[in-house]
C-alpha cells in the first residue's frame, strides 16, 4: 500500500468513527448496530461475525467499550496510526459537546429551575448505577463463591478506606487461585449461559 492510500484509509477511519460518535447516546452497546452498518456493510472492513469477537475483547480490557472497539478496529485496518485516528474520531465530537454543556451547567446550576430538575435527576442516576450493578451482577454472581466475593468486596468498600485498584487486583488474584482448584469448567459454562441468556 502506498503512502497516499494509507493516509486516505486513516482519514476514512477517523471520519467513520467521528460520524458514529455523536449519535451513540449512552455509548457502549448502543453503538453496536451503527458500528455494524458502518464497518461491515458500508465499508466491508470486517466480517459481521468478527464484530462479536471484537466486542468481547473490548469488554474484557479496561475502558469504554465504544472507545476500545474503535481502537481495535482502527488498529486492524491501519496499524497504530489507524488505532489513534479511530480513537480520536470517537472522542472528538463528544469532547466539544461536553465542554459546551459543562460551561452551560456551571453557569446555570444555581437557577431554581435547573436546581429542581437535578433534584429529580439525582435519584435516577442512583438507579442507573444500581442497574449497572445488576447487569454485571448477572454474569458475575454465578455460585456461592462469587456471591461471597461480591458481599466481601462491598463490605471492604463500605468500611475500609482503600484504593479501588487494590481490591480489584485482589479479586482477580482470588479468581486465579480459586479457579486453579478446578472450578474453571463450571464457570465457563455458566458464563456462556449468562451471556446468551441475558441481554
Amino acid at each position, binding site marked *: 500500500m502506498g503512502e497516499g492510500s494509507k493516509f486516505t484509509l486513516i482519514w476514512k477511519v477517523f471520519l467513520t468513527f467521528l460520524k458514529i460518535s455523536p449519535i451513540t447516546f*449512552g455509548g457502549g452497546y448502543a453503538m453496536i448496530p451503527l458500528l455494524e452498518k458502518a464497518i461491515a456493510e458500508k465499508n466491508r472492513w470486517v466480517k459481521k461475525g468478527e464484530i462479536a469477537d471484537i466486542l468481547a475483547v473490548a469488554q474484557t480490557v479496561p475502558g469504554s467499550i465504544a472507545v476500545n472497539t474503535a481502537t481495535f478496529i482502527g488498529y486492524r485496518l491501519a496499524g497504530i496510526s489507524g488505532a489513534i485516528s479511530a480513537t480520536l474520531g470517537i472522542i472528538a465530537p463528544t469532547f466539544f459537546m461536553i465542554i459546551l454543556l459543562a460551561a452551560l451547567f456551571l453557569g446555570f446550576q444555581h437557577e431554581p429551575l435547573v436546581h429542581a430538575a437535578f*433534584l429529580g435527576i439525582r435519584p435516577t442516576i442512583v438507579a442507573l448505577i444500581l442497574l*449497572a450493578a445488576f447487569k454485571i451482577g448477572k454474569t458475575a454472581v454465578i455460585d456461592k463463591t*462469587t456471591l461471597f466475593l461480591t458481599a466481601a468486596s*462491598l463490605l471492604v468498600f*463500605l468500611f475500609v478506606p482503600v484504593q479501588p485498584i487494590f481490591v480489584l487486583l485482589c479479586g482477580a488474584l482470588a479468581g486465579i487461585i480459586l479457579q486453579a482448584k478446578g472450578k*474453571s469448567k463450571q464457570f*465457563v459454562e455458566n458464563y456462556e449461559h449468562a451471556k446468551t441468556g441475558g441481554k
Partner: protein
Amino acid sequence: MVLWNLFVSFIKIGFVSFGGGYAMIPVIQYEVEKHGWLSVQQFTDVIAISGMSPGPIAANAAVFVGYKAGGISGAIIAILAISVPSLIIVLLVSLVFTKVQHQPMIQSAFYGLRPVITGMIIFAAVQFAIQNNLIGIHHFHVTSLLFLFVSLGLLLFTRLHPAFVILLSGIAGIIVYF
C-alpha cells in the same frame, strides 16, 4: 499541578475501569473525591449530563471533571489520559492474543474480578444515595426514593433509553420541586 494530578488520576482510571459505562463511575468518583475536584452532589450532576449526552459516559465524565478542575487544558488532559491506557492495552492484546477472552488465566481472573466490580458498583450506588440525601442513618427522603424506584422500574421493565429516563426525571423534578 492540577493538570499533572488530572493526568495521573485519569491514567489510573483508564487502567482499572473494567466494564465500561456506569461501571466506571466508582473509580472516577474515588479520584474526584480524593482531590476534591467536585462534591459528590456535583459529581452526580456531571454523571447525569454525561449520561444524557452522546458518547461514552466515562469519557464524557472525564472531560467534565477535567474542565471543572483545570479548564479547557484540564479537559484535554483528562480525555487523553483516560484513553491512553485502553489504547495501549488494546494494541498489546492485538499483538499477543487474537482471542484473549478465551485464555483460561484471563477467564479465571475475571471469575474473581467481576464480583468485586459488582460490589464496587453497589457501593457507589449506596454512596451516591447517601450523599444526595436519599437515605441517611436517621432519615430517608420519601420523594427522592419514589423517584429512584420509579426510574429503576422504568429502566428494568421498559425499553426506554437511559438518556430518556434521565430527561423524564428532570421534567418530573421541575414539576415536583419548582
